[in-house]
C-alpha cells in the first residue's frame, strides 16, 4: 500500500527517474561499472604496494637480470650450459627438462593407462579386479608422495656393482636407470623429419581418400595408408642411410657402467611417480570410452553382417575416441603440470630452476611470472588444438 501511495504522490519526473533506476538495463550497467571500478581500484592498490615495497627493499623491477651470469651449475641438461651462462639460458635448460620429462611421461602413462584400462574392461573377473585395485591405489595416493617414494627407493638400490639387471637391456642401480641406446647417427635427425612429414602427409591423404570414397562409392580404409606413411617414411630414410644398427649396450665396469645411456635417479623417480599417477586416471578414461558404444549398436552391426574388425574400426573406435580424447588431453596437460613437483627430488625442471633464480636474485615477481606464462601457454596451445580436434570428430548433425 505504502508503495503505491508514494508513487501516486511523486511528480512525473520522479517516476521517470524511478523507471530508469528500476530498469533492467540501467541496473546491469550500474553493477558492471561498480564491479569494474572495484577491480581496477584493487588492482591499482596492489600494484602501488608492490612498487613501494620493491623500492623499500631496493629490488630493481624488470627482466634485465635475465642476461646476468647465473653462477650455478645444472646437473642435467639437453643443451650446453655452464655456470658462466646467463639466467635466461638456465631457464631454457629448465624448460627443456620440463618438456623432456613430460614427453616421456606422457608416453609411459599412455601405455600403462591403456593396458590397465583395457584390463579393467576385460571379461575376466580376476584381471578386472586387479586393474581396479591398481587404479584405486595410484589415484588416491598424492603424486608427491609417489615421487618421493620412488626417489627413496632408487637411492637405496645397490650401487652399480650389484645393480639389478633388466633382461640384458639395462641396469637399475642407485645411479639411476642405464639402458641400451642406438649409437647416434646423422640419419636420426632425418628420420624425425620423415616422421613429421609422414604425419602431415597422412592427414592430407586421409582427407583425399575420404572424398574419393564418398564420390565413387568404393571403399578404401585410410587407416592403412596413414600407418604405412607414418611408419614407412622413417624406415625408408633409415634403409637409405645404410641401415645403421649400432647399439651401445651398457656393461658393468668397476664402480660404474660403460656404454648405454643413463637416466638420472631424479628423472626416473619423477617419471615413475607422475606417469603412474596419471595412468590411473587414463585407465578410467579408456574404460569409459570402451563402454561408450551401446551393446545394441554392436548387435545391430552383427545383424547386418559386418566383420568384427569393421565393427571395431567403424563403430566402436570412432565413438570411443570421441569420449576418450578430450579428457585424455587434459590428463596430459595435468601430467606436465605435475612435473613441476620436480623440486622435491631435485630434478632441474623449469620451476626448480626458476626457484633457484628467485632465491639468488630476489626477483620473485618476474621469476614466478615466467613460470606462469610458460605453463599458461602450454595450456592455451593444448586447448586450441583440442578445440580444433573436437570440431573434427564432433557428431555431424543435419
Amino acid at each position, binding site marked *: 500500500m505504502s508503495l503505491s501511495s508514494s508513487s501516486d504522490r511523486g511528480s512525473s519526473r520522479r517516476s521517470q527517474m524511478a523507471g530508469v533506476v528500476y530498469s533492467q538495463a540501467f541496473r546491469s550497467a550500474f553493477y558492471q561499472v561498480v564491479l569494474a571500478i572495484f577491480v581496477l581500484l584493487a588492482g591499482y592498490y596492489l600494484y602501488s604496494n608492490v612498487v613501494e615495497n620493491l623500492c*623499500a627493499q631496493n629490488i630493481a623491477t624488470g627482466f634485465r637480470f635475465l642476461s646476468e651470469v647465473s653462477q650455478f651449475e645444472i646437473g642435467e641438461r639437453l643443451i650446453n650450459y655452464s655456470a658462466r651462462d646467463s639466467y635466461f639460458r638456465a631457464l631454457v635448460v629448465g624448460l627443456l627438462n620440463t618438456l623432456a620429462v613430460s614427453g616421456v611421461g606422457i608416453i609411459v602413462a599412455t601405455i600403462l593407462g591403456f593396458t590397465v584400462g583395457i584390463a579393467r574392461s576385460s571379461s575376466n573377473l580376476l584381471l578386472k579386479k586387479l586393474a581396479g585395485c591398481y587404479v584405486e591405489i595410484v589415484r588416491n595416493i598424492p603424486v608427491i608422495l609417489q615421487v618421493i617414494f620412488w626417489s627413496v627407493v632408487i637411492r637405496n638400490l645397490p650401487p652399480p656393482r650389484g645393480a639389478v639387471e633388466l633382461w640384458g637391456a639395462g641396469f637399475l642401480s642407485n645411479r639411476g636407470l642405464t639402458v641400451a641406446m642406438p649409437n647416434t647417427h646423422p640419419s636420426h635427425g632425418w628420420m624425425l623429419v620423415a616422421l613429421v612429414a609422414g604425419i602431415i602427409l597422412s592427414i592430407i591423404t586421409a582427407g583425399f581418400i575420404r572424398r574419393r570414397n564418398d564420390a565413387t562409392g568404393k571403399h578404401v580404409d585410410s587407416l592403412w595408408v596413414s600407418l604405412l606413411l607414418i611408419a614407412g617414411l622413417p624406415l625408408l630414410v633409415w634403409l637409405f642411410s645404410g641401415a645403421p644398427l649400432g647399439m651401445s649396450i651398457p656393461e658393468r665396469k668397476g664402480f660404474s657402467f660403460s656404454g648405454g645411456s643413463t637416466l638420472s635417479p631424479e628423472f626416473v623417480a619423477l617419471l615413475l611417480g607422475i606417469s603412474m599417477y596419471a595412468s590411473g586416471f587414463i585407465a578410467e578414461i579408456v574404460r569409459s570410452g570402451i563402454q561408450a558404444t551401446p551393446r545394441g549398436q554392436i548387435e545391430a552391426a552383427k545383424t547386418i553382417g559386418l566383420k568384427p574388425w569393421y565393427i571395431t574400426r567403424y563403430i566402436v573406435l570412432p565413438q570411443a575416441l570421441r569420449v576418450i580424447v578430450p579428457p585424455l588431453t587434459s590428463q596430459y596437460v595435468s601430467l606436465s603440470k605435475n612435473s613441476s*613437483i620436480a623440486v622435491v627430488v631435485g630434478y632441474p625442471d623449469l620451476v626448480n630452476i626458476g626457484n633457484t633464480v628467485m632465491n639468488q636474485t630476489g626477483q620473485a615477481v618476474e621469476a*614466478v611470472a615466467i*613460470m606462469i606464462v610458460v605453463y599458461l601457454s602450454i595450456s592455451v596451445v593444448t586447448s586450441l588444438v583440442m578445440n580444433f580436434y573436437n570440431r573434427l570428430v564432433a557428431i555431424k548433425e543435419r
Partner: protein
Amino acid sequence: MARSEILEHHAELPPVLASGPWRWMHRHFFSSVGQTFLTIVVAAITIRTLWFLLQWAVLDAVWVASGPQACRDAAGACWAVIVEKHRPILFGMYPYDQHWRLVLMIVIYLTTVIASLTPACWKRSILIPMWIAAVTAITVLMFGGVFGLPYVPTSEWGGLPLTIILFTGSVLFGMPIAVLLALGRRSPLPVARGLSVVFIESLRGVPLITILFVAVNIFPLFLPAGMEVNKLLRITLSIAVFFACYQAEVIRGGLQAIPRGQYEAAASLNMTYWQTTLRIILPQALRICLPAMTNHIIAAMKNTSFVIIIGLFDILTATTAVMQDPLWRQFYIEAYLFVALIYLVFGLALSMYARRVESWVAVGRI
C-alpha cells in the same frame, strides 16, 4: 518348407539361464581356452605376490622392537619404526607434552565430519551450530593461550592435524568462492562473466606450485608495509582458490543442467536474482554435481601435500624429516606406506560415500 519344419530345423532352444557357482566361475574365468590360460597366469602371479606380501608384512614382520637392530635381523617389514616414530610423523613439531590436544582435535574433527555426512543431520539448524562449535573447539585446542593451555604458534603446527586443517580450510573457503565463480561465469553481465572466465582459466592453466609461490613470495609484496598475513592462512587460501576454480567448472555443469522452466517459474513468482539462485537453482544444481564435486574434494586433500615444497610440516614433510634419522632410515618403505595408507583410507572412504550419495540422488531420496 512348412513353418513347423523351419522351426524344427532352425530354432534353437532358448538359452538356459543357469546359475550357481560353477556357471559363475565358467562365465567369469574359464569361458574359453584363452580366458582359462589368462586366469591361470594372472592367478599364479597374484598368489605369489600376495604370499610374498603376507610374509613380508605380517609373518616375518617386527611389530615391537627395542631398537633398529631387531628389525635389521628380521626378514620382514619393520612396523616397529611406526611404533617408534608415530608421534613425530603424526604430530610434527607440535610440543611433545601437548600432543593430547591434537588427538582430541582429530576426534572432534572426525566426529563432526561423519555427522555432517549423515543425511539425518542435513538441516541448517544442526549443521551450522555444529561446525561453529567444532571450528571454535579446534581453534582453541590448536592455538591454546586460554584455559591454561600453553600458546602454540602456527609455525609449530604439523603432521596430520596440519593436513586436516589445510584440507578442511581449503574446502570451507573454496566452496563459496567456487559457487560465486560459477555464477559469475553464467551471469548475464558481460563484465562479471569476463572476469570469472579469465580468473578460472588462468588459475586452471598453471600448476599449484606457482600459486603457492605467489602466496609465499609475492603476496607479502601486495600488502602495505608492516602488514602481515599468517603464512598458514595464505597457503590455505591459495589452495582454496585453486580448488575453487576446478570446482566452479563442475558447478557450472550443474547449473547448465537446470531447465529454463525453473528460472521462468521463479521469475513468474517475482523472485529476485538472489532468491531464485539461492532457493531454486543452487539446491538443484549442487545436488546434480555432488558426485563430481567429491572428486575435486579428494583432489584438494591430495593437493595439501604440495606444501612440502614451501616448507610447511604436513604429514608427508614430517615423515620425510623423521626418515632422516640414520638409525631408522633404512625402513623408509614402512613409513611411507603408513602415510600412503592414511591418504588411501580417507580417499577411498570419500569416493565410496560419493557413490552412495549418487544412488540416493538416483532414487530421489535427497
